[in-house]
C-alpha cells in the first residue's frame, strides 16, 4: 500500500508538476552538455597550446556549473515547498489516519528523490542526445574543424552530472523530510485553507509608483541612447551605472504600480469601457491585474532576468561571431612571418617545417618596399583634410603606404583563390582592409574616390603610375600586411627600385600541420633577436586562442541565459499551477453563470498568455533599447555588425523554450480547471 501510495503520488506529481519535472530534465541535460565540452571533438582538435588556454575556460565553466547547480537546487527547494503547501491537507490526512511522522517524512523523501532520479536519468539521456548537436554548433561558431560525426559521449561529464545532481536531489529530499518532520499537524490541516495575502496598495500610491517608474525608465533609456552616441565610451562613465540602477528600480516600480497604471488607463478610456464590457474581459482584466499586483516582485525579477538573458546571449553570440570573423580576417594564411630586417630569410623557420614533415606547402617570399607616400597622398585633398583630428582615421591617412610588388601580390591572391589581378607596366592597385572598423570603411571610401577621380596619379621611383582599377581591394591578407596602412601594388620593376621595408614569409599547408610544429614555431619566434621588429601569425594558434577566449564569454552567457530562461518560465508555470485551486473555484462560478467551454478556454489561454507575456514585453522593450545602444557602440568601436542576427538567434532559442512552457502550462491549467480530473 505504501509503495502504491508513493507511486500514485509520483504519477500525480509528474502530471501536476510536469513543467517542474521538465525543468529538472533540462537543467540536468544542460549541465551534462556544458560539462562534456572538454570532450567535444572540436575541442579535442584544438592545438596543445590553445587547449591549455581553453582549460581556463573549462575551469570557469566548472565554477559556473557549481553556481548554477546551487540555483537549480534553490528552485527545486522552492518548487517543493510550493508543492508541499498545496498538498498539506493530504499530508495531514496521513497523519490523522495514524501514519507516523517519521514514516511520512520517509515517504516524501522517497518521492522527491525518485522524481529527482527520474529527472536525472531522462536529463542525462537528453543531454547525451543534445551534445551531438552542441558539437556542431560549437564547430560552426568557432570554425573549428570537425572530423566526421562520431558519437560523442563524455563519461567524466556523465559521472559528474550524476554525482552533482544526485547529491542535490538527495539533499533536497532530506531537507524536505526534515521540514515535514518538524511540521505541526494543525498547520498541515489548516494550511491549505490559508489564502495568499492580498497585498493591496492604495490607488494613489500605486499610480504614483507607476508614473515614477515611467519617468525612471524613460530617463534610463535616454541615458543609454546618449552614452551609445559617444565615439569613445569610458566603461566607468557614471551615466552607465545610473542608467542601470534607474532601469532596475524602474522595472520593480513598474510592476508594483501596474495596477494603478492600469486603473488610470481604464478611466482614461471613459466609462463605457468598450473592450472591458465584452464577454469575460472584465474578469480577465481583474485576474491578470490582481496577479501582477500580488506577484509584482517575482515578475519584475523575471523581467530583469529575461532582459539580461536576451542582451547577454545576443551580445555574446554576436561578439563570438565578430571575433571569429576578425580572427579569420587577420590570419587568412596558415603561417605569416614578417621581419623588418630585410636580410631575414626565415631559414630556421623553414627547417622546422621540414623537420616536422610538413613538405606539402605553398610558400610566398617577398620584400615589401618603403615609400614616401602617405595614406593621405592617395586621397583627394578634401577627404584628407576631413580626416584631420579624427583619431584612427587621421592615423590611417598619416601612415606610410606599404609597397608590394605585383608578382608577390598575385601569388598571395592565388594562395587564397582571390583571382589574379593584371597590372600594366604603368599601373597601380590599392588594397585596404575597410572592414576593421567604421572609420576604416570611411578611409577606404576616400581611397576609392581618389581612384575614381580621372586625374589620379602616383609618382614612384621616377615612374608615373595610373590606377589599374577604380576599386580598392579588400580581401583579407593578414593584419601585418593590411593593418592601418594602405597596400600599394606596383609593377615589379618599379618595386625593385625602392628600398626594402621588410621581409615576408607566407605559407599555406596542405592538410593539418602537427600541433608540435606550431609550438616549436612559437618557441623559435619567442627567441628572436631583440631589437628586430618581427611578427608571426599562425592561423591555428590564433583561431584556437580566439576560440578559448571567446568560448569563455559565449558559454558563460549561453549557460546563464538558457538557465535564466528556464528558471523564469518554471517560476511562472509553477505559479499558474499553484494558483489553480483558487482559480478553479472562480472558473466554476463562471461556468455556473453560463460561460461556455469555449469562452472559458479562451479566457484561460489569454490569462496564462498575458501572465507569461507581461514580463517578456517589459524585457523585450528593455533589451531593444539596450541592443540598439550596444549595436551602435560596437559599430563605432570595432567591425562588429552581426549583432542583429545574433539577437534573432537568441530570440529564437528564447521563444522556443518560453513558448513550450507557455503551451505546457496552458495545457496543465486547462486540465486542472476541468472536472473531472483524469487520472
Amino acid at each position, binding site marked *: 500500500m505504501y509503495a502504491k501510495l508513493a507511486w500514485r503520488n509520483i504519477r500525480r506529481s509528474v502530471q501536476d508538476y510536469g513543467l517542474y519535472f521538465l525543468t529538472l530534465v533540462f537543467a540536468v541535460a544542460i549541465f551534462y552538455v556544458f560539462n562534456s565540452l572538454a570532450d567535444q571533438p572540436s575541442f579535442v582538435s584544438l592545438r596543445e597550446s590553445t587547449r591549455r588556454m581553453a582549460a581556463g575556460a573549462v575551469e570557469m565553466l566548472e565554477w559556473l556549473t557549481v553556481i548554477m547547480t546551487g540555483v537549480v537546487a534553490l528552485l527545486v527547494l522552492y518548487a517543493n515547498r510550493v508543492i508541499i503547501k498545496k498538498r498539506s491537507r493530504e499530508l495531514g490526512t496521513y497523519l490523522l489516519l495514524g501514519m507516523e511522522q*517519521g514514516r511520512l517524512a520517509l515517504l516524501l523523501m522517497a518521492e522527491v528523490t525518485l522524481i529527482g532520479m527520474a529527472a536525472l536519468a531522462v536529463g542525462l539521456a537528453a543531454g547525451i542526445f543534445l551534445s551531438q548537436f552542441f558539437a556542431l554548433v560549437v564547430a560552426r561558431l568557432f570554425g573549428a574543424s570537425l572530423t566526421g560525426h562520431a558519437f560523442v559521449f563524455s563519461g567524466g561529464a556523465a559521472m559528474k552530472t550524476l554525482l552533482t545532481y544526485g547529491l542535490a536531489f538527495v539533499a533536497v529530499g532530506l531537507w524536505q523530510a526534515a521540514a515535514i518532520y518538524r511540521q505541526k499537524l494543525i498547520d498541515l490541516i489548516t494550511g491549505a485553507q490559508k489564502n495568499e495575502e492580498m497585498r493591496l496598495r492604495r490607488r494613489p500610491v500605486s499610480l504614483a509608483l507607476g508614473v515614477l517608474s515611467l519617468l525612471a525608465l524613460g530617463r534610463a533609456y535616454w541615458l543609454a541612447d546618449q552614452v551609445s552616441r559617444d565615439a569613445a565610451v569610458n566603461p566607468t562613465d557614471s551615466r552607465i551605472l545610473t542608467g542601470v540602477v534607474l532601469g532596475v528600480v524602474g522595472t520593480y516600480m513598474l510592476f508594483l504600480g501596474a495596477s494603478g497604471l492600469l486603473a488610470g488607463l481604464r478611466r482614461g478610456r471613459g466609462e463605457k469601457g468598450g473592450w472591458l464590457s465584452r464577454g469575460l474581459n472584465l474578469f480577465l482584466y481583474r485576474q491578470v491585474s490582481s496577479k501582477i499586483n500580488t506577484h509584482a516582485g517575482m515578475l519584475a525579477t523575471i523581467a530583469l532576468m529575461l532582459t539580461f538573458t536576451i542582451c547577454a546571449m545576443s551580445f555574446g553570440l554576436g561578439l563570438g561571431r565578430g571575433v571569429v570573423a576578425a580572427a579569420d580576417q587577420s590570419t587568412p594564411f596558415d603561417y605569416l612571418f614578417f621581419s623588418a630586417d630585410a636580410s631575414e630569410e626565415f631559414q630556421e623557420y623553414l627547417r622546422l617545417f621540414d623537420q616536422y614533415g610538413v613538405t606539402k606547402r605553398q610558400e610566398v617570399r617577398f620584400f615589401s618596399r618603403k615609400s614616401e607616400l602617405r595614406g593621405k597622398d592617395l586621397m583627394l585633398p578634401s577627404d584628407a583634410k576631413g580626416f584631420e583630428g579624427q583619431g584612427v582615421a587621421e592615423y590611417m591617412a598619416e601612415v606610410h603606404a606599404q609597397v608590394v610588388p605585383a608578382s608577390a601580390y598575385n601569388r598571395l591572391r592565388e594562395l587564397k583563390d582571390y583571382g589574379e589581378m593584371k597590372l600594366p607596366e604603368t599601373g597601380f592597385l590599392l588594397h585596404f582592409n575597410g572592414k576593421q572598423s567604421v572609420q576604416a570603411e570611411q578611409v577606404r571610401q576616400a581611397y576609392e574616390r581618389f581612384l575614381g577621380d580621372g586625374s589620379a596619379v602616383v609618382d614612384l621611383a621616377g615612374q608615373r603610375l595610373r590606377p589599374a582599377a577604380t576599386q580598392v581591394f579588400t580581401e583579407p591578407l593578414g593584419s601585418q600586411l593590411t593593418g592601418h596602412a594602405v597596400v600599394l601594388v606596383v609593377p615589379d620593376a618599379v618595386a625593385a627600385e625602392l628600398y626594402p621595408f621588410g621581409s615576408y614569409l607566407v605559407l599555406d599547408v596542405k592538410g593539418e600541420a602537427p600541433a608540435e610544429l606550431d609550438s616549436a614555431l612559437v618557441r623559435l619566434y619567442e627567441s628572436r633577436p631583440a631589437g628586430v621588429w618581427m611578427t608571426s601569425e599562425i592561423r591555428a594558434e590564433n583561431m584556437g586562442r580566439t576560440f578559448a577566449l571567446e568560448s569563455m564569454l559565449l558559454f558563460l552567457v549561453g549557460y546563464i541565459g538558457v538557465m535564466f530562461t528556464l528558471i523564469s518560465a518554471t517560476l511562472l508555470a509553477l505559479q499558474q499551477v499553484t494558483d489553480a485551486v483558487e482559480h478553479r473555484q472562480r472558473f466554476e462560478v463562471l461556468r455556473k453563470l453560463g460561460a461556455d467551454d469555449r469562452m472559458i478556454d479562451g479566457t484561460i489561454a489569454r490569462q496564462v498568455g498575458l501572465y507569461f507575456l507581461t514580463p517578456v514585453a517589459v524585457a523585450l522593450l528593455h533589451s531593444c533599447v539596450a541592443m540598439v545602444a550596444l549595436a551602435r557602440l560596437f559599430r563605432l568601436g570595432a567591425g562588429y555588425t552581426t549583432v542583429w542576427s545574433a539577437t534573432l538567434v537568441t530570440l529564437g532559442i528564447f521563444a522556443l523554450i518560453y513558448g513550450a512552457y507557455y503551451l505546457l502550462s496552458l495545457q496543465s491549467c486547462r486540465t486542472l480547471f476541468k472536472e473531472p480530473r483524469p487520472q
Partner: protein
Amino acid sequence: MTQQEPILQVEDLVKYYGAKGSITKALRSVSLTINRGEFVGVMGPSGSGKTTLLNLVSTIDTPTSGRVRVGGKDLAGLKRSELARFRRERLGFIFQDFNLLDTLTLGENIGLALSIAGRGAGSDRRVADIARRLGIEDALDKFPYQVSGGQKQRAAAARAIINQPDLILADEPTGSLDSRSAQMLLEAVDDLNRELGATIMLVTHDPFAASYCQRILFLKDGQLFTELVRGDATRKAFFDQIMAVLSLLGGGGGDVR
C-alpha cells in the same frame, strides 16, 4: 445507556491563539465527559470554540493548559510515535470536505486506514463489510471525483470506523451535503452508534444533524453554555428544544426538514 465508562474526559481545557497584544481566547475553560457508546453533539455559534475543542481532542492541536484524556490516557504525555499509534487505534475522523485522497479509489481510501495500522492483510473483506453497511459497496472501485458528495462522505465515515476506534470525531460532516445525502449519512452514523456501539462526537451548527444525537453540549465564547439530553423525546421534539437553546444563544437556526 447503562455503561458509564468514560471515553473522553476533558478537564479545564484552555486554548489561546496569537502572540502578545492580540490574543484570541478560543477556549476559556471547558470540562466535559463523554461515555462509551454515546452520540454527543457539540453546537454553538461561529467563533464559540467548537472546532478548537475538536482539534484539541483529536490531537491536531495542543492546548494552552488543561488536559484531555481518551480511554484514560492523557494526551499531553504522549510521544510522537505514541501519538501516531493513538490516532490510528483510538480515533476516527470525518470532515466537512471528506478529506479523501483523490489518487485512491474509495475502497483504497478506506483500506488505507487499515494498512497504515499494519492490518492490511484481509483488508478487502473488511472494507467490503463496512461499505455494505454504509451502502457504498458499488462505488468502491471509483475515484472520489466520480461519485457524489454523499457517497464520498459515507466512504469517509467507513474509513473512520474501520479500525473500530474508541472515539469518532465528526466535524460538520453534513456541511457540504444536500439534505437527502445528509439524512442518509446521519442515519448511517446513527446505525454505527446503535449497532456497533461507536462513540461519536459530532461538531455541527446544523440543528437537524444535532437532533440525531443523544446529548448536546452548547458552547458560547469558549465556554460551556448548557447541555441538552434527548432522553426519550422524539427527534422532532428534540429538534425544537435545540432550536429554543439556539435562539437563546443568538446563533444558528434552521428549518424542520
